[in-house]
């Protein structure tokens, strides 16, 4: 099938990509646009490492044809990282030792961003529910839960 042009808003800027039908958002981000913060773990929705925000909601970019985000707003980890320093959630991850190999971190941070945007003061249970689809094989999750709670406090005092 012929390629077609898809336009969407990525990290605050309109982008236009030419893709074959059913090309995933993950492939467009990583291979066409070279934005590699969005990870490629299992490529079938089992690990959460490719999570991005589509209209503010966490979505597995490996399962989403890019045509489905035409005209919509996509935010990746690059989009929330300031030019200088770190986003408060990133800083909380850093300060709470919530990053070891780092492969799950971008997905975890985007899921927690979506959670804190709609629920600025979540309980531990709500944080666990939010990150339940994201696999971490290093930390045992404890430091990530700590980081999410710490990030909530930081964002409330900003």
């Amino acid at each position, binding site marked *: 099938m012929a390629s077609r042009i898809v336009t969407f808003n990525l990290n605050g800027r309109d982008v236009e990509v030419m893709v074959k039908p059913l090309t995933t958002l993950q492939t467009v981000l990583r291979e066409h646009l070279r934005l590699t913060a969005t990870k490629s773990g299992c490529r*079938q929705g*089992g690990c959460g490492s490719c999570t991005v925000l589509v209209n503010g909601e966490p979505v597995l970019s490996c399962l989403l044809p890019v045509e489905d985000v035409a005209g919509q707003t996509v935010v990746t980890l690059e989009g929330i990282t300031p030019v200088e320093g770190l986003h408060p959630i990133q800083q909380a991850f850093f300060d709470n030792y919530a990053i070891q190999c780092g492969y799950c971190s971008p997905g975890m941070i985007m899921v927690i961003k979506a959670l804190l945007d709609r629920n600025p003061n979540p309980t531990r249970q709500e944080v666990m529910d939010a*990150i339940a689809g994201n696999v971490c094989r*290093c*930390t*045992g*999750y*404890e*430091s990530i*839960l700590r980081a999410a709670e710490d990030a909530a406090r930081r964002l409330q005092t900003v």
Partner: protein
Amino acid sequence: MAKLRGTGIAAVNYPTGMNLGGDPSQALIHATTTGTFVISLSSTDLGQGLKTVIAQIGAEALGVPFEKVLIDTADTDTGPHCMGTFASRATHRVGNAVIMAAKEARKVMLEVAAEELEASPDDLDTDGQGNIYVKGSPERKIDITSVALAAHFKYGRSISGRGMYIKPKSPVDPETGKMDPDSTEAHACMVAEVEVDTETGEVTVLSLKSAYEVGRQVNPALVREQIIGGAFMGMAHALYETTAPYYPSPDHAPGNFSEYILPGPHELPRIESVVLEYPSVNGPYGVKGVGEMTANAPIPAIINAVSNAIGVRLTEFPITPEKVLRALERSPKMKQLTQASA
């Protein structure tokens, strides 16, 4: 239907690295023109914090600030040789190699500083803040950047050092079989508390409490995170993970994260640990190592706790709900429970 609770314990003696002799690692250190000390290694940081602890060890041995050390693990093809990051070995083996390399580099650094300060190298010391000073008169000092610039552009010297560590092979006494197989051993003991649902066969780990003896801790925060992550991974092995659920047939083997059963944040038990430090004889500053070993103790501790809870000895892990339900069929505790309720 009942929830049965049980407690189990397990202890670990963990020999650091590969044993029976060998298992070498090497390190190279050189100062850049502006006095950053680059430590080149082929040892890989898997996320456990090897770069951080090696930079700490390098900074201590060189006598320079932590910020002045850069760890380069870019390429195992071109870097100095290392056997790898496994078996809780990297801090011990690589740390020793780095201390040896740092001694050689520090000697050159002090010789160059001695020329600049018009003093004897033996009379100089580092203050750990980035300066070299004359012992007894700390106002006579020179900063490390100036020393590195002078070495490169005035004296034509390389502030560098080579280091390696290898444990010599220990011969076996033909009469007694006695030998010294390992370099050092870390130890741990763990108590697991579990709850078993007799209706579903599911096991909930309530807590994992442990004591670790890992020699000197270079970075206690990173040691703690290894213990927590390892406890969780051990629990995952004990109760969930298997690549061959219907061993020996490979049919239905999981091929990806959607089918390979893992615990998630909801399964996180209470994890508590105390760390004891009995320095090793041959580790860098007394290090023994703590990494892979942290996943060992939870497996027997949890399995012992489940056996204690249901009164049946379990011998195959992971302890899936199916295995628990089958074991419950021959459990004396269950017989008592059903008789009591009848």
